[in-house]
């Protein structure tokens, strides 16, 4: 079995305990929104096999459901059909379910214990949203958290529009093959290979972690996790997985969607400049930087990380403020590449026009050209 979180007498998994892990990350996008097959990202992540240990791999893909782009695409894992039935019943009560189908998979010998994997294209029922005074996005967020925490044997692996997360226990290239990602076409792909240190791995705990159309792949260990989590809990985010990726995703969601901070500002919250640097800034910049640290100090992600945030509108890659984890970026034409290692880029783009190592805390932002705001939902 794929390992339910709620099973008794099992080894602890994400959500029970904090599980540190090392990882490989990669992200590729076409800034003009041109679609390309998942083959490239599989190729890129597979070159960094040494950075994962077969206990988790996954992908996020954007632009893959153009036919259902107005619907939230709910990717789900179920432990059993009974679990699935319960959730489906619940979905029907609260959403318009346009379509529900098994996500096609292939048999791959090394991929074992896969759960029941489904996707639903849904819309929140307008009257219910109005009833609880929530935007559809807000409603979605609450519902996802509710399902994850309250339904036995069920887990939402992604819930954004025109995007999806494909993840599981195994090396990422095997997971890619398992989900047949070569047959999907997207304009933005991120991938993750995982190296957890003390767990057999759980499908739900694999990366990317997603919320609405945010997806986060992450390499690192956030030492400030306890602080970040309590801060998020104050804003009613339930960090049920206890993973850094989850916390990072929620922080992005809170800063960008709820607090409507500009993307660069949100990045500055996660990896703020040191006070010494702030003191040297021009007055206006300094004022903002001071205020951000004053108010969002608990949002600082402290400790080593490199993170790739995927969203409908583009991709952001960012390092911790003293660059304790690797991150390389490259450009070639409309294509933007970010990865843990340069090799993972060169593998899919032999001669990039520019390759660079982003400085600590300096985000690499890839924005879809026709988009001017990062916050897609208002």
């Amino acid at each position, binding site marked *: 079995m794929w390992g339910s979180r709620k099973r008794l007498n099992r080894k602890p998994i994400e959500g029970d305990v*904090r599980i*540190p*892990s*090392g990882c490989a990350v990669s992200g590729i996008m076409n800034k003009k929104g041109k679609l390309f097959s998942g083959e490239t990202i599989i190729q890129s992540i597979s070159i960094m096999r040494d950075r994962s240990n077969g206990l988790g791999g996954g992908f996020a893909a954007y632009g893959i459901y153009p036919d259902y782009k107005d619907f939230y695409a709910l990717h789900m894992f179920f432990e059993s059909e009974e679990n699935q039935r319960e959730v489906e019943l619940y979905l029907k009560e609260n959403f318009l379910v346009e379509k529900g189908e098994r996500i096609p998979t292939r048999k791959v010998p090394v991929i074992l214990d896969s759960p029941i994997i489904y996707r639903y294209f849904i819309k929140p029922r307008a009257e219910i949203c109005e009833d609880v005074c929530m935007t559809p996005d807000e409603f979605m967020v609450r519902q996802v958290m509710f399902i994850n925490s309250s339904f036995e044997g069920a887990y939402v692996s992604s819930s954004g529009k025109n995007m999806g997360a494909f993840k599981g226990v195994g090396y990422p290239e095997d997971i890619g093959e398992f989900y047949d990602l070569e047959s999907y076409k997207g304009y933005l792909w991120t991938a993750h290979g995982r190296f957890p*240190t003390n767990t057999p791995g759980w499908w739900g705990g694999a990366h990317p972690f997603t919320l609405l159309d945010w997806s986060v792949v992450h390499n*690192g*260990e956030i*030492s*400030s*996790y*306890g*602080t*970040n989590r*309590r*801060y998020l*809990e*104050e*804003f*009613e985010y339930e960090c049920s997985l206890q993973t850094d990726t989850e916390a990072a995703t929620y922080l992005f969601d809170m800063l960008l969607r*709820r*607090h*409507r*901070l*500009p993307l*660069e*500002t949100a990045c500055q919250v996660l990896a*703020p400049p*040191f*006070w*010494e640097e702030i003191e040297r800034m021009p007055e*206006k*910049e300094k*004022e*903002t930087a001071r*205020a*951000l*640290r*004053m*108010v*969002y*100090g*608990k949002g*600082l992600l*402290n*400790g*080593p990380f490199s993170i790739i945030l995927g969203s409908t509108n583009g991709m952001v890659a960012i390092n911790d*403020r*003293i660059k*304790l984890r690797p991150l390389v970026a490259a450009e070639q034409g409309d294509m933007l590449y970010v990865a843990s290692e340069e090799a993972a880029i060169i593998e899919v783009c032999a001669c990039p026009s520019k390759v660079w190592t982003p400085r600590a805390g300096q985000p690499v932002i890839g924005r879809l050209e026709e988009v001017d705001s990062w916050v897609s939902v208002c």
Partner: protein
Amino acid sequence: MGFSMLAPEYRVDRDKDRCIDCKVCVTQCPYDVHYFDEEEEKVFAREENCVNCHRCVVLCPTRALIIRKYPLEFRENSAWKDIDIRQLQKQAETGGILLSGMGNPKPLPVFWDKILLNASQVTNPSIDPLREPMELKTFLGRKPERLEIGCDGSLKTKISPQLELSAPVMFSAMSFGSISLNACRVLAEAAEQLGIYYNTGEGGLHQSLFKFADHTVVQVASGRFGVNSEYLKIGAGIEIKIGQGAKPGIGGHLPGEKVREEVAATRMIPLGTDAISPAPHHDIYSIEDLRQLIFALKEASDYEKPVSVKIAAVHNVAAIASGIARAGADIITIDGFRGGTGAAPTRIRDNVGIPIEFAISAVDNRLKEEGIRNQVSVVAAGSIRNSADIVKAVALGADAVYIGTAALLAMGCHLCRKCYMGKCSWGIATQQPHLVKRLNPEIGRERLVNLITGWKHEIKEILGGMGINAIDSLRGNRHMLRGVDLSSRELDILGIKAAGE
């Protein structure tokens, strides 16, 4: 005094091979212990007077003195310990309330010592504070829920006034009157040099300390001593004192003999009169009254100062703290049951209140649950003894701590706990001019600055070990804490796991 059943508490061991009868002990003992017998040409001791303040021991140039516990023992009795019998005898002789100085000395558990800290190994690197920046800067004051930033990156939200600290530590409220002007000066100068704050207590602000006002939190307590418009406007912050950890529910009493000229002028009371702070504020009988006072003070200081409300850690501290936050306070200060005092009824000090460790956890939880934790600052006080205690307090959820006893110890206090006698041999808790001058503020300031500087280094080392380079990332980071020798109930209240989990 006449006949007393009380045996001396201490004996003075004088090594005759070392003693040169130089009489330093005689000149230095304010309790009249040592005396020089002209006939014998030797120094002797009246041991019954000794309070074990160590002044003579430290100044004896030949190290001829040792003060020991008086070896007389009562018949063993685990119910009636020596201290119980002595206290009873004292009351039988005087018929009064037992008085004590400094914090609760009883062998109640010190939870700091049952909490252990984490450090990084392999999966994330520890950070070397000698090579990498390590930030302790702390802001106390009300924070908006969110910031509004324009597309050009400009700040649209106005931030309320804040106290900016170079490290999450301040000097507790200790009034001029309860301590000497020199001691106040040490606190003020050290706070300025360190980039932190000290607190006037309910003693007003002496003219000579106005120049340190930018590093001063001015207190408004139930007696309103020293409070005027200038006082409220000159400080960096204002603190309303509701209660004190050493004596929750009890007022204060500065005897008239300590109300000398400068104290009287600073407190704005007649010379030589007792300064009595009522147990409650007589204009605060409920939370809405507190709100009125908070806003009265804000109004009086043009909304330019953060307002703190200080309470003792009592059973219902979490709910009270929440009420204080909602009443408009920018900072909530919680003083644990081991907090110090110049004078408190012994029974109150030793039996009322709860440990600060639990109080921090409970308050932090409650404010978080209500979604207002990030909007107010929480300052913890009461027996913070070292840098590790600070780290633990911050990890439990405090924004900063106040230290009182530790600051006094750095100045020279030897914790003899006789502050209420007004004869502090170290020149701290006294108003007698010949004793006050024993504290050279220059030396006191250096020692206090040294202490905090050392603590800062230690905190940085600890943070670095945790893989954290800003104190912000320690706030409420209870993952960095593990408990030993704690019941699961206590672990739950502290919100930490047991060691090994």
